[in-house]
């Protein structure tokens, strides 16, 4: 039976609809032109109706997320869900919440699609086992390839077509959706107890550089026709003058499509008395000037969190800086990871600059279609803070109140204090669903046109945007009501989105087997993740080009 949502104000930026009062029909999991006379009616008077939220970058599953859960039992102590509260499965919360809690919480904010962006290929099986236990949302993983010794070997020999084949194979072997690069070459250098500081620095054991790595992978991805372009975490992230590396990396791309992830963490300069400053305005300008670039922000919000990244050397640096717990997990031939708890303090000069830099990126990038709302969950803040972040963007008085509460020394320096822009609901719909879905290449998501997945969030209009976005009146997944008034009412499971590039790997089959035999400890025949690990798979087609 279908559902009709009547009397709501539809915000569907993909179709240019801004608060248009019209009925949304859905049936059999899709948006349709007419749901039929027997459709159930939802009266959305006083509400806006948007497509379900799409999170382009959130660390929710896989080996390093599970280490973050494991390492901090104190993080789970104060929040839980249980059957008594009406949930099918119990679990705990905290910044690294359990799988079921994660699915429920996203759903309760009106999100219906999430991407785990950093899975080392060897961890893909683990990540998919966790995704199978995340209810309520569709999900996908990006595979980490920026420190792959297989790619480095081909790069050193200039064998680009073999890189295409390898990426084609590894996408299939990991059932991934796209490719992420974290600190290109840096995690490999960390295996030699070193790091990368410049995009033209040579690796110590392979004749290649971050510039070459990034270009080769971006070109291979274009050749294979992957729906989402290169998703990049730059070298030198998190340190003063990181913005220079971000700009150099963006220039190196020479117009190729690029997604710079959690750019806030790369937006620091070294000016001012403390030799730490926000250079977000320069990066925003760079984004404004280069239409090939999109970003997500990775906003920092104050409070305790756990940092989780494949950037192993950065986490060691953070561990030394804070004396916090530290887990390091290098992955053979592929990548690395680190986990360090961190407390962002309002009173801290550096943390206040970080907080401001993220907001500056949001407010200074003109085109909302090229900036997406993230906190790099949980690195900048846990995803449950999104409604608060939305209010900071939409309400300049609210923002001003918060500026007054940060480190006074930082408040005096930040460009943020002069910015009056307020995001509109239309722009919020772009940065939280329409834009992110478009950049991900998900044609059935992020909009409410006929044929789209019937993933819908209905928010009751309120001047307190935080309250409004924290508790949607209705959330629908695949055309079924799954949450009401910010509370899950029905447990459902979404699909896992993956690609299957057509290229194949005939030319490297033998070499790959030799490489595994020499350097891996897992047999190549046992390595690929089969579809049996994806309980509800959905294949997303690649747009293949023939000019390899």
């Amino acid at each position, binding site marked *: 039976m279908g559902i009709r949502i009547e009397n709501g104000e539809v915000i569907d930026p993909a179709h240019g609809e801004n608060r248009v009062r019209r009925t949304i029909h859905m049936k059999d999991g899709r948006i349709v032109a007419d749901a039929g006379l027997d459709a159930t009616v939802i009266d959305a008077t006083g509400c806006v109706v948007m497509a379900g939220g799409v999170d382009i970058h959130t660390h929710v599953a896989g080996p390093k997320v*599970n280490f973050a859960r494991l390492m901090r039992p104190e993080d789970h102590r104060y929040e*839980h869900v249980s059957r008594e509260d009406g949930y099918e499965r119990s679990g705990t919360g905290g910044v690294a919440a359990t799988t*079921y809690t994660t699915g429920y919480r996203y759903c309760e904010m009106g999100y219906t699609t999430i991407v785990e962006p950093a899975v080392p290929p*060897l961890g893909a099986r683990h990540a998919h086992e966790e995704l199978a236990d995340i209810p309520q949302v569709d999900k996908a993983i990006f595979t980490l390839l920026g420190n792959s010794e297989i790619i480095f070997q081909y790069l050193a020999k200039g064998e680009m077509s073999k890189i295409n084949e390898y990426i084609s194979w590894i996408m299939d072997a990991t059932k991934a959706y796209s490719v992420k690069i974290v600190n290109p070459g840096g995690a490999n250098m960390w295996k030699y107890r070193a790091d990368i500081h410049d995009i033209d620095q040579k690796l110590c054991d392979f004749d290649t550089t971050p510039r070459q790595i990034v270009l080769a992978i971006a070109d291979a991805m274009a050749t294979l026709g992957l729906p989402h372009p290169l998703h990049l975490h730059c070298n030198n992230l998190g340190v003063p003058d990181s913005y220079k590396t971000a700009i150099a990396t963006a220039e190196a791309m020479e117009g190729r499509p690029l997604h710079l992830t959690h750019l806030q963490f790369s937006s620091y300069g070294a000016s001012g008395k403390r030799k730490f400053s926000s250079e977000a305005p320069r990066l925003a300008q760079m984004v404004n000037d280069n239409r090939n670039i999109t970003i997500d922000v990775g906003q920092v919000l104050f409070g305790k969190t756990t940092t989780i990244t494949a950037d192993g050397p950065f986490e060691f640096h953070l561990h030394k800086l804070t004396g916090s*717990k530290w*887990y*390091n997990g290098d*992955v053979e031939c592929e990548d690395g990871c680190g986990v360090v708890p961190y407390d962002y303090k309002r009173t801290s000069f550096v943390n206040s600059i970080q907080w401001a830099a993220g907001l500056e990126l949001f407010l200074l990038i003109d085109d909302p279609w090229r900036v997406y709302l993230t906190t790099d969950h949980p690195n900048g803040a846990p995803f449950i803070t999104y409604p608060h972040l939305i209010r900071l963007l939409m309400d300049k008085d609210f923002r001003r109140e918060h500026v007054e509460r940060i480190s006074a020394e930082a408040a005096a320096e930040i460009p943020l204090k002069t910015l009056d822009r307020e995001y509109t609901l239309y722009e919020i719909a772009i940065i939280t669903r329409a834009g992110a879905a478009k950049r991900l290449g998900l044609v059935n998501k992020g909009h409410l046109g006929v044929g789209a997945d019937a993933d819908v969030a209905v928010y009751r209009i309120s001047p307190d945007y935080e309250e409004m976005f924290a508790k949607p009146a209705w959330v629908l997944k695949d055309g079924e009501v799954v949450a009401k008034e910010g509370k899950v009412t029905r447990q459902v499971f979404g699909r896992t989105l993956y690609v299957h590039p057509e290229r194949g790997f005939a030319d490297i089959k033998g070499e790959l087997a030799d490489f595994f035999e020499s*350097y891996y400890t*897992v047999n190549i025949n046992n390595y690929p993740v089969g579809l049996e690990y994806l309980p509800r798979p959905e294949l997303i087609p690649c747009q293949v080009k023939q000019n390899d």
Partner: protein
Amino acid sequence: MVALQLGGAPAATLGEVKNRADLVIFWGSNPAESHPRHFTRYSGAAKGRMNPKGRKDRYIVLVDIRPTPSAKYADEFIQIKPGHDFEVLTVMRMLASGKLPDARSVGGVEVQTLERLVSRCKDARMGVLFFGQGITETRGKHQNSLVIYQFGKEMSLYSKFLTLPMRGHYNVVGSGNTMCWQTGYPFAVNFGRGYPQFNPGEFSVVDLLKRKEPDAALIVAAEPMDHLPYEAARHLENIPTIVLDPRETLTTRMATVVIPVKHAGISVEGTAYRMDHIPIKMRAVLDSPWPKDDEPLERIIQRVKELRKEKAAV
């Protein structure tokens, strides 16, 4: 686990050991008997990127309370007095930070020997300290692992250094991982309140059984009658028990109900996590008349739900 929760650890997958480690220390572990393939596949004879000659490219140290069969594979055997691991490791941490202890020997080991070992760790291209039940199951328990992780983190200031527990018991890492993503905690989880609570020492199985708290037990793929302390195991004999196991064990012999199930990795496909947390897909090679282990569990859950409904109706 508790030690990991207290401070974290520098770790890596075993392929990193194979490819890079030039110093391998086994402490309180006897891989020749407990992990017979470890040596050839990862830590001893294995050839890798920076170890093309395999065994010849590595210096191997065994630290234990007696010369076990693993000693003959090592370049150096260091014998310590039983129960002195914490002291010896603490002195190594002192030496690493440039301080000298007020003694010529500790735990039966010459301080000079430890000084040499510490400087090998500092100079290693990649040093690895594997530790076994001689560390985790001895007096001081997680304090011993904690001092090892601390040592590993301090060594990371000088060299690439890893500290890795020699986990055993088949898929114990997989069960820990699954517990963790579903509850937030790797073991000692109590669902009594309807949501997961964690308190090792209170909710861990040995403590519960010693206090005679459980009045029934469901035991899946575990051998408590063989592995648990006598006092704890004894309580299981006095309560109704359901045991799921493919084999006859001490535990199945005392069980009230035994449900034989297929052996994952032998008669049914499955996934097991290796000691370095890499999940491995396992295939079925033999047929078995028994059900998969999740089938009886699903049916028990189903029946409990029905009973609850019936009870509610009355």
